[in-house]
């Protein structure tokens, strides 16, 4: 059953949510809040943004009514699974003086107990981002909270048949089809869901939803929908030799032009599903008897990020933007064996002034490629 395509009725979606809850999961899925579709805990399919879509452009996001009543007719919102696996603020430990002569301190490392979460409606880019975060938080040195939430997490993915205005997952080879990591992957058809189990757990779930084997036509339809989706991305990024180009051109004038627009506000990094940096801060109480260590989302766009004994190593906004883009699109390959960008478009949509990674990287890359071609031409002519 794993790997085969089945059909389930749309009404089964609510059963799915109920089953997951009965299994002890908090179901986290897309729902409308404050004019956007965000991930939040939901209790029934009624809370899904049925019949809504999102219009996304650089620095722009609006909800709109669809002409149909699709459950998943939109793409990703400002936050991803990251929020749940790597929470924005976490206490790492606390220390209290106990007045005893030798040890002197009690150390408490207990963290919030990790919830069992079923993520409903994660997209292919979200899965790819999880894969990246796994390499950061769940590899040789595992973050215990991340590891525990990740281990028990159920992933109900949705294939994207209508990419958004800032999506470019097909350029990054991460979507629009979910190919791995999921327990269950759904494709929304007009009158039903096509469902595919990716794991034993997914198979067991699917079995409880009265699945019917999908016939050739349905299989073909799903193929067509996803192929067409791949051709209708809102954005594109030519990644050929991109790491080399970016790393070899730290003085390209375009970095200055971006820096004139960039506010160093850090929205891009905090909404990016793969960015993993954090601040660690210690605090003491007034009486000096108790201290706590907290970790919170950090960003390479802040000035403090590069603070060390000698001062700030990235005081200009230019240096910070360049650091971000080159790490994401180039350095990451060396570090993690894959690009740090999954093409979800969040940084483009949620940049308050609409700075667009694909545009900035393309401007530099095209310029360098053109110059290379010109140089080669000149060399050949002179031979």
């Amino acid at each position, binding site marked *: 059953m794993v790997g085969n395509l089945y059909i389930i009725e749309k009404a089964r979606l609510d059963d799915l949510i109920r089953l997951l809850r009965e299994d002890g999961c908090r179901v986290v899925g897309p729902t409308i*809040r404050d004019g956007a579709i965000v991930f939040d805990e939901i209790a029934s399919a009624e809370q899904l943004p049925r019949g809504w879509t999102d219009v996304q452009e650089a620095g*722009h996001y609006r909800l709109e009514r669809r002409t149909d009543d699709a459950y998943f007719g939109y793409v990703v919102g*400002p936050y991803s699974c990251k929020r749940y696996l790597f929470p924005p603020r976490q206490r790492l430990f606390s220390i209290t003086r106990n007045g005893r002569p030798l040890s002197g301190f009690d150390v408490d490392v207990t963290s919030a107990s990790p919830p069992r979460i079923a993520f409903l409606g994660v997209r292919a880019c979200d899965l790819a981002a999880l894969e990246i975060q796994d390499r950061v938080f769940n590899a040789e040195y595992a973050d215990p909270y991340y590891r525990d939430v990740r281990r028990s997490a159920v992933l109900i993915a949705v294939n994207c048949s209508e990419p958004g205005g800032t999506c470019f997952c097909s350029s990054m080879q991460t979507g629009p089809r979910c190919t791995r990591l999921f327990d269950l992957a759904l494709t929304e058809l007009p009158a039903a869901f096509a469902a595919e189990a990716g794991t034993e757990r997914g198979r067991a779930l699917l079995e409880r939803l009265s699945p019917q084997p999908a016939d050739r036509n349905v299989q073909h339809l799903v193929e067509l929908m996803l192929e067409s989706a791949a051709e209708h991305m809102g954005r594109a990024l030519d990644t050929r030799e991109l790491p080399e180009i970016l790393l070899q051109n730290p003085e390209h004038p375009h970095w200055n032009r971006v820096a004139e627009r960039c506010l160093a506000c850090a929205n891009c990094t*905090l909404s990016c599903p793969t960015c993993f940096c954090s601040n660690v801060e210690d605090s003491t109480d*007034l009486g000096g008897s108790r201290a706590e260590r907290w970790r919170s989302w950090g960003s390479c766009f802040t000035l403090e990020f590069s603070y060390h004994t000698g001062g700030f190593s990235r005081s200009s906004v230019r240096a910070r933007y360049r650091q971000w883009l080159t790490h994401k699109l180039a350095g990451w390959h060396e570090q993690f064996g894959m690009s740090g960008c999954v093409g979800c478009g969040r940084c483009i949509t*949620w940049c308050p002034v609409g700075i667009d990674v694909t545009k900035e990287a393309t401007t530099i890359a095209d310029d360098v490629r053109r110059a290379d071609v010109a140089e080669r031409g000149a060399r050949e002519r002179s031979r």
Partner: protein
Amino acid sequence: MPVDGQAKLAVYKFSSCDGCQLSILDLEDELLALAERVKIAYFLEARRHVDPGPYDVGLVEGSISTPEEAERIIDVRRECKFLVTIGACATSGGIQALRNWADVEEYKRTVYAHPDYIRSLDTATPVAAHVLVDFELRGCPVNKYQLLEVLGAYLTGRRPQIPTYSVCMECKRSGNVCVMVAHGTPCLGPITQAGCGALCPSYHRGCYACFGPSDSAGPRSLCRFFMERGLARPDIVRMLRGFNGYLEPFKQTSDEYESDHIRYG
């Protein structure tokens, strides 16, 4: 810094609304713990009794806006080992610094029946324009937890953890939907220093920059974006000249937007 015993604390008021001093009284739960570690020696807003200086820590609220204040702040500096300015007025001149762009004499004539009774300076300026300040705590009003952090850090002998990055950091951490991107509401959060916990965006309003410019604030880019989205120059000038308009780079950018000669491409 006193290792044992209590530090002597003084709280001063200059030209201000008293809101920041109220933040100290607002500490309620923490006030007892605070009173154990510091002796509140001078705090007229809270008690009439005054212990003579010198003091270990002085908190100054308010801007310097009269000749008398310009003299008094020098005495205050003399009697405090560690001087902290609290709030927008003391750190930027505050809302009253709007007079720095206007004719004070004309204001006096308009507002007061006997303008000759009024003795004020032509400008309202931050404390740091007059004396050396050891730490500036921003906010209109200050965040009481940040105030506690500054005092706690002083008492422990460590650096206070007062971030100077943008409000957006706090906004994204709290999981808000960005009001700029999703609602088209102009927001100064990207160029404003964190500290309030992104209070206004949490209530679907744009940030008013109560905590002044962030360490990397680029108001030109943000304001150019506002103009592209239909805001007029005077609106932008008014936005920048709020509680912290007299602080750079808000001041310079607001001046540029006021003068018609500057063009942005």
